[in-house]
């Protein structure tokens, strides 16, 4: 057990949890930020993706003790009221079916477009293949990423 202080979506929280608790479970059970989803616990499905200092990470594999003075952004903090370019594109294309994996998909896509604002087909596949969707919305996710990229360029 240990006392930790964590900045999530620009707010600092202090709490006590076991030092090996993955960031995912701190976000969900301790901070009640349920937008970040549990999917596999081993970094295979991407449902738990958050940004740590702007880069996408699988929060299920990051023990709380390993996070030092870093800024964490979850789906709830990506924008005010879901207005990030990627979130807007997701709404225009109407991507989700069940929606469960989509927070992770959006966080991965947002990080991709931060790094490569005009990604190629191969860039998109490479960045997104770590995120599983069992409803099979891949066709629409790709369409939404292309739309977001187009909106960034104009």
């Amino acid at each position, binding site marked *: 057990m240990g006392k930790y202080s964590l900045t999530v979506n620009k707010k600092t929280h202090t709490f006590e949890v076991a030092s090996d608790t993955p960031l995912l479970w701190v976000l969900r059970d301790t901070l009640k930020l349920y937008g970040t989803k549990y*999917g596999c616990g081993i970094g*295979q499905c991407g449902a738990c993706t958050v940004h740590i200092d702007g880069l996408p990470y699988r929060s299920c594999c990051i023990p709380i003790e390993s996070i030092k003075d870093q800024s964490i952004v979850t789906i709830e903090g990506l924008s005010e009221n879901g207005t990030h370019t990627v979130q807007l594109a997701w709404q225009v294309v109407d991507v989700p079916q069940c929606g*469960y994996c989509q927070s992770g998909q959006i966080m991965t896509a947002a990080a991709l477009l931060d790094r490569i604002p005009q990604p190629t087909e191969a860039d998109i596949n490479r960045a997104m293949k770590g995120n599983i969707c069992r409803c099979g919305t891949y*066709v629409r996710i790709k369409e939404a990423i292309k739309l977001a990229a187009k909106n960034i360029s104009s």
Partner: protein
Amino acid sequence: MTSRRNFIKVSGLAGGGLAISLAVPKYARTMAFKPGDREITMNNFLTIDTGGNITAILTKHEMGQGTGTSVPTILADELGADWSKVKIKRSDYNPVYSWREMGTTGGSGSIERIWNAIRNAGATAREMMKQAAAQQWGVDTMVVKAENSFVINLITKERLEFGQLAEAASKLPVPEKVVLKKPKDYVYIGTSVKNRITPEVVAGKANYGIDMDIPSMVYAAIKRCPVFNGKVVTYDDTEARGLKGVLDIFPLTLSEDVKKTLHPKIGYVDEGVVVVADSTWTAFKATKLLKITWDQGANGSRSTTSLENEMKAAKDAVSFKFEMGDFEQVLNDRNNEILEVEYNNPHHPHALMEPINATAHFTGEACEVWVGTQDAAQTNAEVAKLLGLPRENVTVHVLNSGGSFGRRYHMDSSIEAAFISRKINKPVKVTWTREDEMMHDHFQHCLRNYLTAVITPDKRVVGVQNKAICTVDYAIWSEKWDHYYAFPNIRGYRAHVPTLVQQGAWRSVGEHSGSLGKECFIDELAHKTGKDPIDYRIELLGNEVDWGDPKDFPNWVINYFLPRKKIIRQRYLDTLEYIRMHNLWKKEMPYGRGKGFAIANFGDTICAQIAEVTMDDSECGFSVDKVTAVVYCGMVVNPHFGRGQIEGAIIWALSAVKYGGITVENGVVQRTNFDNNKVVRMDETPEIEVIFIESDEEPCGLGEPGTPALAPAVLNAIFDASGKRIREIPVRKEIFQSA
């Protein structure tokens, strides 16, 4: 309550307001509207408040199929409502709804089952709005119309908003008969209305069962017996109890008396040891520290190999048989060529994105359950039986789920949560780990088809025999009435081998397992007889199957089954003709690439698929480049959702073709997570084209029909590309080296 068919009854509802309850047969209730009431319950599916806000009550489970938006769309259309003023409210389990109205969400049947009730609910409320306005204006309802949440006087152009009319409407008698809109007058049906869950999903605000959080709730995880039907003998929890945050540890075992009351399949619960803790993580961690001795029972010595041997042995000891014509006679004609092949479609996992979970709060006299379930009624029944409570004391709150695909028909997690909450006297959320979800899935059943065809020297197929060996007691194409392809002599056998894992519905169930052998075999026969696969199917479907003398038919076959089969056969033919007419099949494939065709129905929806593959050096030895799906499903309520369901079903089935087929060793499922249970990801997703055949017939299901044709279409394409017949899934590269 009295009711009779096509009659709408008006009666009292506690709490005031007007309520029309519509069902099949229809009935209705109402009570005098009390001054001061704002929200008026027009019927079981809809309330309107005096400000014009409309609430559509959702009785079906939203699990990604879009029903949570499309069903209210149908209601809004018939009502003549402004969609932007319609809010959607999920209903708890409520026995006021009939099975068709609430019941199970599955079998791709939600829209089909609720179609009449929901349109009548909308149309009845619309007529009452029109009457209220007409009375106010002193005109006949003939000269008013409802549109966009207004009633409009067609002569004076005056307008009254629904909210202004709601109170007056609530005092009117309920019309006994209403006229439903014609398809040409639909405003929302047939358009791609946006999914109502999307804004919440993209903002991370969509709540699923696993996100349930109630005050003073604790968290539970369970170490379940890894072998199906195994038992807990003893356990040592010393180490687990030493973990800070662990609150309680106890076995989950049900008495034989209780087990007898629960449904043997959907109420089945694995034995195990429960850890209750102050967080999900602590509960997960503590279950790994438990040392449990199991009695593995009969399944402990079984494996995939032993199952395969049992199935092969059962081939000659079949328990079910039917015969049309005289297969034996053509088989014994020495001039004829005999083709004998074997197809295998193994157990596949669901691997739902949202792991299984449930939250329960038992309070002595009552229990509340929060869960994403495909059957709230059965959840209510099973939990009530477990707790020995009357059903009305169990409340089931249905939450959206992160994919169901048949898995959430099973009540295991709700029963577990109720069991634990009773034991600890606290609200509790049970969360399954991904490993739990994989190893304790209710897998797709396993089917092996031993197929024989008799071919004459002049290349006519005069006999077909199917021996279907299955781990459930059903299989398509193994019953007389399952046959559409009219071979002159058909013989079918079926045998049932006991399962070694839990089984359940898996997107398209028997249609997926049976279509593999059937549609690949037809392709084999087309090649054997030198025919084009599309032309050959049209030829085979050109005649009715010879069912024998109608005087021997059971009544249900005459009244229900054969008329329905006639429609389906016609839809098969229309779909095939569409493909021929639009030249979708006549595509020349270069060396190393191939195309394959298959067609299947799920319910009354037909889905034909053309798969294009390239042979390569990847893990599976091939890649799917493109799938073209042609769908005949009657009216498409929401084309965006419809296309999404077909795209999703294709990707779902492709995961089974490439990575499906679990193995079991000593009763233990050898897959645990997405590292050893691969699924199709974005980089393997083919181009998908979905074509709906235009129709204004009543809408039929779309959730499952995209699944069954995919596997045979891909295997047929692999044959076209490589010359090699693959007769089982998953397909591995090594098969091409040995075949």
